[in-house]
């Protein structure tokens, strides 16, 4: 019968085979990922102990402190600009060539290789502005890198606010900015925060942009006294330990990798939970 229709094989058989192959592909992707991550969590968790985390000398403490300061400053620089841009795109801009160009620019910013951001940070912040290798130079470089992420998540959050809410506020005599500040932004805040958490996670894991702009390896005093101080960052510490430093025990390397991954994935999971909870909310 199948040959009558011009098929060599019954389409239902083809379908079975194809679907089986898709399952195989799924396994091929997920299994090694799960295996690798599992192995790393295992090695990391078994190497991890409080002493290693808290040791200021040769432990994780300076990197944890440094990365915390770095990502917070990054978020602080990126948040106002990113949210401002999102407000512009969702509330003020009228469709046209300018908006089209802004969107194209943002897409391209998202696609610029991270090492190119590092070059830009070196040329602009470290050398030209003269901040040197410092917390500020690194945070500004990372802020540019996460900006597209902040903008797109914030814009999405703003667009989910129903039009009626805005119109209601305007009808009551509020100005456009009053409406945005009192009605739109508070309601969009959870979505904006989600985006910021994702950006912090991204900034925490990036190495290439901070190679030439901020990172140190060993500090007498890991807590920066000003934004012009150097810091130790976790991904840089992992990179240096893996490629440059002799005699560092494997446990320290695995523990650093573990804490870094736990931090980044943890932040992502928090963001995902916040976002899915939000989606359930109905207007």
């Amino acid at each position, binding site marked *: 019968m199948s040959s009558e229709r011009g098929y060599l094989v019954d389409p239902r058989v083809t379908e079975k085979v194809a679907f089986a192959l898709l399952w195989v592909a799924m396994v091929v*992707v997920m299994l090694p990922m799960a295996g690798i991550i599992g192995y790393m969590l295992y090695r990391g968790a078994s190497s991890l102990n409080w002493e290693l985390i808290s040791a200021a000398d040769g432990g994780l403490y300076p990197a944890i402190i440094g990365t915390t300061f770095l990502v917070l400053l990054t978020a602080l620089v990126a948040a106002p600009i990113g949210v401002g841009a999102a407000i*512009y795109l969702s509330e*003020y801009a009228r469709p046209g060539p300018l908006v089209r160009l802004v969107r194209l620019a943002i897409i391209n*910013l998202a696609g*610029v290789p991270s*090492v190119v951001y590092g*070059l830009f940070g070196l040329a602009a912040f470290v050398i030209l502005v003269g901040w040197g290798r410092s917390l500020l130079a690194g945070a500004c470089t990372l802020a540019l890198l996460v900006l597209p992420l902040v903008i797109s998540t914030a814009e999405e959050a703003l667009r989910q606010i129903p039009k009626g809410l805005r119109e209601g506020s305007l009808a009551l005599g509020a100005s456009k900015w009053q409406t945005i500040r009192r009605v739109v932004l508070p309601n969009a805040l959870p979505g904006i925060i989600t985006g910021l958490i994702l950006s912090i996670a991204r900034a925490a894991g990036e190495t290439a942009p901070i190679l*030439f702009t901020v990172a140190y390896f060993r500090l007498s005093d890991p807590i920066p006294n000003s934004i012009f101080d150097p810091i130790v960052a976790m991904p840089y510490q992992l990179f240096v330990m893996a490629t440059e430093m002799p005699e560092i025990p494997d446990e320290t390397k695995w523990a650093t990798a573990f804490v870094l991954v736990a931090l980044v994935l943890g932040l992502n999971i928090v963001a995902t939970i916040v976002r899915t909870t939000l989606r359930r909310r109905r207007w």
Partner: protein
Amino acid sequence: MMKRRAKRISEWIIERLIQVSGVLGIILVLLIFFFLLRNSLPMFQERSLSDLLLGEKWSPTHGDGHFGMLPLLLGSLYVTVGALIIAIPLALAVAIFVAEIAPRWMREFLKPAIELIAAIPSVVFGFLGLLVIGPWIAEHVEAIRVGQFAALGSVMLAFMALPTIVSICEDALHNVPRDIFNSSLALGATRWQTITRALLPAARSGIIAGCLLGLGRAIGETMTVLMVTGNAQVMPQGLEGFLKPIRTMTATIAAEMGETAVGSTHFHALFTIGLFLFIITFAVNTIADVIVRRSEKDIA
């Protein structure tokens, strides 16, 4: 009165600030381009574009310096093409699986799980490749002598680019009007026939855009390739090149910038590589964007 006026002025200022941050994206792209260009111009005064792009020897500190970038371009090309050959079929399969086949509960689980893969820092992938996977391969595979080679970089990049491709392809499949799917089924086609004959063609541009963005991601990736590909600036030879050490453009910048003197020819050469990278990724992303827009228009 005064108070209201002050308020109006502050509102005016705020709204202008918002407009400025709105167009800041454009300014930033231009600024990045300008800084790269400014720092690579001295290079073009010393060497011609064809010397740079077609020169086969990269040895920046030797004599007057050899700045042939062809080995680096080819290195990036090898690693990236290798990554896409692995990633695209797998990503398409996963996207189809997630969009059309997976039961609902699994879909709810898989989407975030795949996004999480994208979140793992690249230095961690490099660390695993350098300390665990590379040495293991060198020990167990006869043909590979050293655990740092192009194909290892490709495999790792494939996994890193996968989530990007999957999520865009999945969106594209999802955006195809259900009518197409249902009418195909109603005509007696199997689900697989519907997927291959109706759904995939309809989602074509989205899929191409996803692959392009994956390409952009792979070509710009730095830390992983720096750590696992061995960084030998050879001209890769044929298919065997995949099993040999190789050096990419991104790795060259990351590895050498720390050793150069500011303002030296070498310094400008590294910015020139950065400029080329910027141009390549700019082109790839813009094309991808144009394709996405067009497909959105088609559907609408």
